[in-house]
């Protein structure tokens, strides 16, 4: 499994982590990781610290996640992207659309 998700101890965060390549082949897995989670006020953390590469369809998948998070009035944080991935996020200027830390 290159997509894993878990809820934090206090139940306030859903952490989705992607390993290795984040591309279209993870489409279904990625959706499954958040689709049924509709708890209001939840913080969705997308952990990209173990992601080595990301393509533009992954950016599209993040936008779908963002739509989902907005629907449940939650918050989306992209966490610790590697330099390569950060560069891709910066080219797409995603820091203007969501929090990247």
């Amino acid at each position, binding site marked *: 499994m290159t997509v894993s998700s878990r809820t934090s101890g206090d139940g306030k965060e859903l952490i989705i982590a992607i390993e290795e390549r984040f591309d279209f082949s993870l489409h279904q897995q990625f959706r499954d990781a958040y689709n049924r989670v509709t708890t209001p006020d939840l913080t969705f953390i997308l952990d990209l610290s173990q992601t080595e590469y990301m393509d533009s369809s992954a*950016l*599209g998948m993040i*936008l779908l996640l963002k*739509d989902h998070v907005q629907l449940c009035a939650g918050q989306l944080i992209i966490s610790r992207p590697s330099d390569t991935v950060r560069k891709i996020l910066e080219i*797409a*200027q995603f820091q*203007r*659309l969501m929090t990247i830390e």
Partner: protein
Amino acid sequence: MPKNQKLALVVDDSKMQCKLLSVLLQEEDYRVVVANDGASGVDMYIEHQPDLVLMDINMPIMDGFEATRRIKKLSGVGTLAPLIFITSMDSEQSFIDSVEAGGDSILVRPFTPRVFKAKIKAMQRISDLVEQVKSLQQEQLNDAELAEKMMSGVIEARNFALDKIGVIKKAATIFSGDIQLTALCPNGDINVLLGDFTGHGLRSSIGAIPVTETFRAMTKKGFSILDIVAQLNRQMYTLLPGDLFFAASFACISEHDKSAYIFNAGLPEGYLFSDSGLIKNRFNSTHPPLGILPKLLPDAQLEVVQVMKTDRLVFITDGIVEARNKSGDLFGFPRFEKAAIDGIFHKKLVDSVLNSLDDFCQHCDQEDDISLVEVPCSGWQAVELSHKVAIPETFTEEEDFFVTTPDSSPSWTYHLHLTGRLLKTINPIPLVMNQINDLEGAGEHWQSLYTILTELFINGLDHGVLALNSSLKNSAEGFSQYFNERSSRLDKLAGSGIDDFIRIALQYYPLSHGGKVVINIKDSGNGFDILDVMKDNSIAMNDGLKLSGRGVELVNQLCDTLEYQEQGTLVTASYIWHNPVKLN
């Protein structure tokens, strides 16, 4: 005999077995041909192209395994005539060997007729599925080829100045999700777009046609590049599903103004190279790709740079820098920049980048579409300056070529008074040109009028309302200072009231063989000392340059008359054109 009756080939050295299998197959409505050894089995296969093959293993001349290998080699990847081994060798090894040789199934004797027939049905089901997939694939291929033909043949073939622009376009599949557009503005500037839809293939191309139409239509009408970007963003936001978007770089290159206006929304950095291969500017992405946000971000603005005639502007998509070699390394920016600079030395940027990419990737599969545009900063067709009146020599004095209406009153007038904030947000020239087109129809001669209006309006705004000094633009540092100052003064206008204004008035006089437009543009600025630079209230052509930069020189050439009044805050220009004269 019905045409769709299937044909089976039975290969067995026992005539008895052949007879038995043939009968069973005929009961299942197959026609049957028979061979008694492997070698003639292969020959029969070539001759008859059967739909099903039954193969014995132990045979003289050539055994079943070898015959199967040869048949499977012949039948290629896409076609499947199922091949079933019929054998008495009930061992694990024979089963494995059968599959290794290319057999699709194995049936071990003894079996009942019912089991045999069930097996045939199952195999036929599989081969029907393969057929179906094959025809779907073919259909998809046809669609993609049609779309590709449309893109390259119809959309991109209509690009402006194709011969002057360097292009790389390598699609990952048949159809590229990247799009490259160029179009000529009414005033002779050129607009360039390089865009990349998310993903690749047919799915990524649904936006290509609306993008092309909008880009061309708005360029033709004289909208600014930022207006075009904003409209494309709105359009893509409405059109594309949530996970699809359009990363694109835009440029408007003005040869006579020696400047380029750039906007990069989500593509890797763009470059301005000097002819010696120096990277003069990099244009980083400053905005998310189009189609994600309903409106552009409020701080979205163009980057303005000064360009030399010999400079070259280069945009790339991420397919280049993210191309991989066998060990999974990325081609990356440094390799790209080195190849581009090497290429500029030899005036072959495109070839150099392509060669470098090929050397690096060898024959690795291409994962994404690869695109580049390389645009020279000069060499577009010269602005048409020949719309001034030329009275044909054949006309006699009795026949006045330009007969104005007796009372000399205009057939229509048009006023537009823009104040404060609107001066920052509205470009009035396309509005005005639209009105003229609606009233008088389209025509080539409007191009010159467009240029006159644009130059005079910008002069009024920059040097009148915003009180900017155009001499700043003469040096490279001053150039960017000028545009920084311009945008900060424009921001201040947003808070001001109606005291800051520009008023545009047009009067139209039809002439018997053409027409005349008188343009008045008044601004709220402090003006300038006209007497210093003008004689008799009309600008001598040579003084025009000193007055307010390059623009006025151009306008003076296009106009019939050009006058400044009211301390330089009011300019009156008249423009006359004649319809093409038909010489009989």
